[in-house]
């Protein structure tokens, strides 16, 4: 399901480029379109078809109507997985957005040592999710981890062994990994705000805090929406990180929809219900992307620099 985000972005691109242009450049979209059809649409249709069958992954695929859908929708695990997914989505958004904006604004100032810091901040993004998870798992081990090693009782919690704590750890690790990326987006956006606006504000007697609230934040509106879309839709695909860190546990405390799909399909050999979950995942992702686009007013092409 990692193919979720790109299609959304691509739809947006083609929509904005086709408007007002002549047909002669349409063919330029062809390679991307072909890739999208081959690796996005075709598998999606395949999954949709599979969700109306019974298949254990090895034997023959038997059509079975709505059996898989009934099993999936009546499974109490589904609402739970949806709830956990949305909880992680909302909380990781709430943690990442303010921190990313602040770091982005901080890094946008053109000073030499900040360029150096920007490189440091960027390191987590260079690591693979699996490596990050394994490292955190080792650090948080209650018996051999950081807390036990340094003898700090506060750190020797059963971090990944209690439902709420484990959820918190997942959100922390996700934020740690992705804040650098979103900071980069904000850094770029802040640098595009004309300095004349700040100069005007200064003349009017606005302090730093006031200019941040009244100029920087409003000017970042569309960047916030872009970054939020990436965060929200991206959070649907947190799989590798959670799978390695907690394997969905303790119990099913961190079993998000993507993980639920994987476990149902590849561990329990129920490809039909797993495909049904996959379809639900796609629908949720599309709905969220649409909602966020609505919030953005659907008018991204219009100038953000009014009054400049």
């Amino acid at each position, binding site marked *: 399901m990692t193919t979720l985000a790109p299609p959304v972005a691509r739809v947006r691109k083609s929509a904005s480029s086709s408007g007002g242009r002549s047909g002669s450049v349409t063919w330029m979209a062809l390679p991307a379109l072909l890739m999208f059809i081959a690796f996005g649409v075709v598998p999606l249709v395949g999954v949709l078809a599979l969700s109306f069958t019974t298949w254990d992954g090895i034997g023959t695929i038997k059509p079975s109507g709505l059996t898989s859908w009934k099993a999936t929708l009546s499974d109490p695990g589904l609402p739970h997985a949806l709830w956990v997914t949305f909880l992680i989505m909302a909380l990781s958004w709430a943690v990442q957005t303010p921190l990313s904006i602040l770091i982005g604004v901080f890094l946008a100032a053109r000073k030499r040592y900040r360029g150096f810091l920007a490189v440091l901040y960027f390191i987590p993004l260079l690591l693979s999710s699996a490596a990050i998870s394994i490292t955190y798992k080792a650090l948080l081990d209650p*018996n051999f981890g950081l807390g036990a090693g340094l003898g700090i009782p506060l750190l020797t919690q059963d971090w990944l062994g209690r439902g709420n704590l484990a959820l918190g750890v997942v959100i922390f690790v996700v934020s740690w990994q992705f804040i650098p990326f979103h900071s980069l987006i904000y850094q770029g956006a802040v640098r595009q705000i004309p300095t004349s606006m700040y100069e005007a504000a200064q003349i009017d007697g606005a302090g730093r805090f006031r200019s941040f609230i009244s100029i920087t934040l409003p000017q970042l509106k569309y960047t916030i929406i872009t970054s939020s879309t990436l965060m929200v839709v991206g959070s649907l695909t947190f799989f590798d990180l959670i799978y390695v860190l*907690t394997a969905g*546990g*303790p119990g*099913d405390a961190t079993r998000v929809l993507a993980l639920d799909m994987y476990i149902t399909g590849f561990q329990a*050999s129920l490809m039909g219900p797993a495909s049904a979950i996959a379809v639900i995942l796609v629908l949720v992702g599309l709905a969220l992307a649409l909602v966020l686009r609505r919030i953005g007013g659907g008018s991204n092409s219009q100038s953000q620099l009014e009054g400049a």
Partner: protein
Amino acid sequence: MKRSPISRRNFLTLAGGTTAAAALAACGSSGPGTSEGGGSASGAATYWSLSGPPGEEIRKAAVERFNKANPDSKITPTFFQNDAYKQKIKTSIGAAQGPTMIWGWGGGGLKSYVDANQVEDLTDWFSQNAAVKDKIFPSSFGAATVNGKIYAMPIETVQPIVLFYNKKVFEKVGVQPPKTWNDIMALVPQFNSKGIAPFSLGGQSRWTNMMWLEFLLDRQAGSAVFDNVFAGKAGAWSDPAVLDMLTKVQTLVKENGFIKGFSSITADSNADQALLYTGKAAMMLHGSWSYGIQASEGGDFVKSGGLGYMNFPTIEGGKGDPSNTVGNPGQYLSISSKATPEAKETAKKFFSTTLVDDAEVEGWIKSGGVPIIKGSDAKLGASPDAEFLKFVYDTSANAKVFAQSWDQALSPTAAETLLENIAKLFQLQITPQQWVDSMNGVIGK
């Protein structure tokens, strides 16, 4: 049975093709590469199995011996991490990209291959090659048999589950190893008051928790209850002994019988075993393979006689035979029905020669395992771990019932529900009654 929680999604590089596989094999690398499905012409066969010590070395050595003796029909082995392998092999077989020889755990997993006509029926071959069959423990064939026919050759070692304990910790606290369930419950507060966890447990791996249920149910009510589940009888989990067993487990959890944070410890990082040999925990229920790991990683813990072991204690008033054990009665090698006739011949030759030869037996003994070859106990004496190996041999040979691990015996679907509910049970997230209800729901599936 031993599984890694670590995701290795991109094991099989898409690029490469056969040249990469050949190159990898040529450097003797253990890294997995691509390999052509089902083996190609002139009797070349492929063999997929598990990576990691001690098994990988021994498997590699076996293939090398065979290839040296049969230069015309080479076997190309590929090794995978435990958990990655379980999913990889299933998807590959489903996509007709599987190897000639399929390594597995028998039981429910093997049955799903049989149902899909993916593995060769070896019944006739074994009756023609009775000499090979006679070399192997008869009890190992149970998990290789589906609907009365043999679909896999039992190989490698018998691995009963053993109760390990740290003798040094017992001496320090001044207590005796438990003989009964009441002894265990009495030991729990004694260890806890000294700041030592009574039991180590790698709970995130889930099958580690399952071993407790297997033994408690067997000691309480014998093997009949799970036999009914296995046979698919409706409501088989509703036996009162099951509720009793589940309540006992939850009591042990509530009284802090298991180490703090057990549900975030995985068995494959060997952290649970480290807790035992470092003296942070007093006892641990684990597969017999753990002995080799503790011997190699625990410094002089095993050599200096720090490690104690026994079969699981009895339960007061329990009906189960105290000699019964559970675990892996063997590992299993099947032949893909989609392989070429030449590749199948190569595989059968590998079965009847290399896999039952003396070098194979010696290799496994040296690694601290008991081979499934009859009479291998005569060779155990020479090993530095003779005492433990003799114990494992006797436990396996004297067991009235050597039950296969539940998650391997059941179908993958039922096994996943089982493991999921066991994890919730240990988390005190569900009651014993809820456990019974959800497990009854997947009987026979």
